[in-house]
């Protein structure tokens, strides 16, 4: 990346304070506080069921939190209507694609730009995402439901880009993408962050990619944040290396099915 990245300001775009969300009687996140500063890429790491998706859903208003508050660009968006939140300039790439199966690829993208009024800008961005993912241009008139899994994932990401938001929530963007595309996706994410100054909150199983692309990271375990730091420092921690990057001394977990307990030093 040769271009000079825009500076990360100290002022948070997104601020979660002590947020608690539950599905019926099951508490999925318990008192999560985090913030994302303008212009940065932040990431949340955590194992299966830790509550990453729940955090993102709570931010974009799909689930109402039981407790706590969420602030976006200085105003309170706790438990607001999702449509309102998106109109404030936040867009969300959901887990599991969620395309509009019976609309064409083109219409799907158009819906991504629903909140926008500038048709020129929309046309330009449409061109932009078609250039990122030429296959989408090829299939512009096909129903999105017929795309392959990875193609749908591309569409889902592109759709969020079409909104030209201030903050993008990315839930596992690399899900089901080929290794080559995974890298490309991250390059695109980083590029958008650098070029447009878009702030990004990223949830990703591919911790290697995520930690490299992000500036700041949180580690979530059982609905609680157990660690946070800059990614540069997180990359050096032993637990992170072992459990998220899969780098371990040989033999620790070679043939044996023996799990070392996480300790979070």
């Amino acid at each position, binding site marked *: 990346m040769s271009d000079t990245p825009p500076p990360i300001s100290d002022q948070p775009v997104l601020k979660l304070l002590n947020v608690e969300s*539950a*599905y*019926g*009687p099951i508490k999925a996140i318990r008192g999560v506080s985090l913030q994302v500063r303008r212009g940065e890429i932040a990431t949340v790491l955590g194992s299966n069921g830790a509550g990453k998706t729940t955090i993102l859903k709570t931010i974009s208003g*799909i*689930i*109402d939190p*039981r407790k706590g508050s969420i602030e976006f660009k200085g105003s309170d968006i706790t438990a607001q209507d999702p449509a309102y939140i998106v109109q404030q300039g936040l867009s969300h790439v959901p887990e599991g694609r969620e395309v509009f*199966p*019976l609309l064409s690829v083109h219409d799907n993208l158009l819906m991504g730009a629903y909140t926008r009024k500038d048709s020129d800008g929309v046309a330009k961005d449409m061109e932009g995402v078609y250039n990122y993912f030429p296959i989408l241009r090829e299939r512009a008139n096909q129903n999105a*439901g017929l795309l392959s899994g990875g193609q749908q994932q591309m569409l889902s990401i592109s759709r969020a880009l079409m909104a030209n938001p201030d903050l993008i929530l990315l839930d596992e963007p690399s899900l089901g993408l080929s290794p080559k595309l995974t890298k490309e996706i991250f390059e695109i994410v980083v590029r958008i962050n650098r070029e447009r100054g878009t702030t990004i909150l990223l949830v990703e199983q591919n911790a290697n990619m995520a930690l490299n692309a992000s500036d700041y990271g949180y580690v979530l375990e059982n609905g609680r944040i157990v660690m946070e730091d800059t990614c540069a420092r997180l990359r050096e921690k032993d637990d992170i290396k072992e459990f998220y990057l899969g780098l371990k001394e040989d033999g620790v977990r070679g043939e044996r099915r023996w799990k070392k307990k996480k300790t979070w030093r």
Partner: protein
Amino acid sequence: MRFIFKTDYGQDIRLAKHGGHLFWYGALMLVLLLAPWLVQEYWLAQLTFVLIYAVAGLGLMLLAGFTGLFSLGHAAFLGVGAYTQAVLTNMGLPFPLALACAAGLSAAVGLVVGLPALRVKGIYLGIATLSFGFIVEEVLARWESVTGGNSGIHIKKPDMFGWTLDSGEAFYFLCLLITVLATLGILNLLRSPTGRAFVAIRDSEISAQSMGIHLAYYKTLSFALSAALAGIAGALYAHQLQFISPDQFNILQSIDLLLMIVIGGVGSVHGAFLGAIFLITMPQAIAMVKDYLPPTIGQAPGLQGLVYGVVLVAFVLFEPLGLYGRWLKVRTYLQMFPFYRKGMFKRQKSFQKSDRLK
């Protein structure tokens, strides 16, 4: 809260999961058995109607609640059952034989209706069954030599090899017996592979298929079983009403049947019963209350339809899980009593997805 310490897998497939179940359902059975001596004749007749509708409800529950196929023409099966029973009984066939024929013929008709269900789903299936309902009604009305056409037919009292059930009590016991058997049958189905196949089809056809479930077979089976139960209910209905005419099995009846399971709670066996109780007592309740209302309202034409609609709307709005869902909440509340927390039953935001793709 009740914690059950499980020691073997058999416990999970037992119908009564614990002593409480045994006690309460036993008590219920006892009350039902003593009912003729406990309640007035009028209420006994209502109870008989409840049992009859519960049988039909069980059938529809199997189809709609467990297999996910909504039938808008279920009254047709009721009608086929009722007419078969009427015609055969009047020809002098003993009750059990006539009932078997009624169930069998309904099931056969159900099979036929099930055929389009193999190819269409959702709204298309709804309309297919609706259409079928209209056609059956028309056939009942036109096939005068057998059905007596629109003038309807009277049906004799049930007769079992020389023993005529001419009292309300005897017929009540007959209905009770049939209801209990039908319920046990359904419960058995639901805890065995057949019932699971139904549920699988409801949730995802494509993966049900890849688990080796023969969609066509189970869908038609579900239709046939459901129709057979409706046929049995229809047969009992014919005896209870003693007079049947084609317009008793019209679209409104079909809608009533659907209402019954929705209000009872789609997807639970209890729901069929609660819904039947509701369906029968509701008009009676309106009739009783309206005498105490000012006449301009109480006696106004249309009141019954209005109340009916309001109750239905209220149910869907406030208790989409139906009466049974409400009961579960009350029970949980009682069991948890001091520890009940407010948000526990707060309804999750949920999001509709196209069921054109399933």
